[in-house]
């Protein structure tokens, strides 16, 4: 096979794989905009047939959906700053040399052990229950407040900042707190941005905590709500009025619309993730 033939085949193959990855998303997106009759007849492939916005009107007008969406936004708004503040505060001392901080290694192991070993689902649940935050918003924030993996990524990044910069500041009378906020944090802006985006996506996507730590479905964040109505088809969460409207818009189109509305925030941060992501991933796994 000639070089040229190989190059052409290679491009075609890569394009085909990329298309195959996108195909399921496009198909379901097309379904969400299609007339339910066309969906039922199996006519919809990659382009909507009988274009309409009925299922989106239905989804956005559904109080349970709107409520869950707001809880998820709130969760991101509170959870991400909490995550980042704690990540920075823990990562900074752990990034110092042992001569400056004698307990560095002991603390580092204290956090790393939690990656290596966990108590498992039930003790985790019982602990959260005994701290009295079951069925409250804080159950979605506090148990995962310290993302240890992000701490490790950030501490490795902090280490790459030349020591001289900080030493100079300390000579000029700056304290450790000032050194952290005025030097280490600004110089790590790309790493902090990457981790912030990770945290946004993690909070937005997590559904399991909501599902088992919330007793009342009114407190479910969006992904937990969708888990129950799309994946589990829990009919008890679907009101009678909703069932009546289903005849009009069909189960499939409304589910498809919910999937895409839930995807919007991820689509919004994705371009930024794209930009920082490669650096982020490299900073985590390629250090030798």
């Amino acid at each position, binding site marked *: 096979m000639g070089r040229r033939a190989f190059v052409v085949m290679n491009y075609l193959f890569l394009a085909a794989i990329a298309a195959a990855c996108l195909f399921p998303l496009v198909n379901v997106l097309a379904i969400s905009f299609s007339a339910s009759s066309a969906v039922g007849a199996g006519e919809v492939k990659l382009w909507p047939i009988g274009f309409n916005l009925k299922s989106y009107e239905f989804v956005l007008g559904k109080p349970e959906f709107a409520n869950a969406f707001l809880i998820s936004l709130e969760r991101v708004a509170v959870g991400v700053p909490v995550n980042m503040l704690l990540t920075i505060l823990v990562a900074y001392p752990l990034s110092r040399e042992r001569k400056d901080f004698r307990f560095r290694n002991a603390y580092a192991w204290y956090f790393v052990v939690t990656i290596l070993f966990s108590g498992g*689902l039930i003790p985790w649940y*019982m602990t959260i229950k005994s701290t009295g935050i079951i069925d409250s918003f804080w159950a979605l924030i506090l148990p995962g407040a310290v993302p240890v993996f992000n701490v490790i990524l950030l501490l490795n990044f902090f280490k790459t900042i030349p020591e001289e910069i900080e030493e100079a500041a300390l000579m000029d009378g700056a304290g450790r707190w000032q050194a952290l906020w005025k030097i280490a944090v600004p110089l790590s802006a790309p790493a902090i941005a990457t981790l912030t985006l990770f945290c946004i996506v993690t909070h937005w996507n997590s559904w399991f905590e909501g599902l088992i730590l919330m007793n009342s479905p009114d407190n479910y964040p969006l992904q937990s709500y969708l888990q129950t109505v799309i994946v589990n088809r829990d009919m008890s969460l679907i009101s009678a009025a909703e069932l009546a409207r289903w005849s009009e818009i069909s189960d499939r189109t409304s589910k498809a619309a919910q999937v895409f509305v839930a995807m919007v925030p991820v689509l919004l941060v994705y371009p930024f993730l794209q930009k920082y992501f490669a650096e982020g991933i490299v900073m985590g796994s390629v250090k030798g």
Partner: protein
Amino acid sequence: MRRRTIRELPFHLMILPGFLLVLVYSYFPMAGIMMAFEKLSPTKGMFLSPWVSWKNFEYMLHLPGIAGVLWNTVFIAGMKMAMGIVVPVTFALMLNEARNRLFKRSVQTIIYFPHFLSWVILSGILIDILSPSTGIVNAALGSLGIPSVYFLGDPDWFPFTLVISDVWKEFGYGTIVYLAALAGINPALYEAAAIDGAGRIRQTWNVTLPSLLPMIMLMSILSLGNVLNAGFEQVFNLYSAQVYRTGDIIDTLVYRIGVENANYGVATAVGLFKSVVSFVMVGTSYLLAYRLTNYRIF
């Protein structure tokens, strides 16, 4: 000495909030594994319930289908680990051959998008497209004259559906790691090989692959820790009672015993078994990675 303590005080203060949260929400549950040896009474709680010693573990060993669950877990996790290396490495090598930057960038953008979607969303999509009666995948197979396949309901298909959909979600993420490693190969090596008369294929064998090997090795070693992680979030959202025979894994079993049947002691015991095995595997993999490739987590 005192001065040193005072100088280090800000560091302790910085760590304190994170320290306490981890103490409560990570270390407290570790102490809670005591429950594996108790018959939990709701009034007495995690630490004071009646002691039953190894009873919960005996019960676990006699659960019907426990061997199957263990096998499913290792089988699904093992296939995912293998695919998690082979697919990204192959794809990165091919993508590296494409010279058009815009094309390369677009392909990357597309293939790692699914990584950022939750299994709830992806399952919603998969359940629709894989439906034997209405899904587009079976419609396409049908037009080729292939009878429809119940990807999510046929126990013989289910594990493979899991592995393929996991590749769909994660291979883009893996590809980037290898692309970064490929970008770091010294171009002089290729020039030298070309001068020696090596063609493209020989260059791939003798320059690219050996340069990539340390990264492949590191990623393989680190993935060893996942030997019992068949992917709870994925399986939980895709499985059903029809596919328990091949699709039930340790984590879903723990969930059903603990959350659905409220049998806390046994669920904790099964979970503890998994935690201990995982701990040994992760610990060994980090140690190996450190010895063989000088990798350090911090």
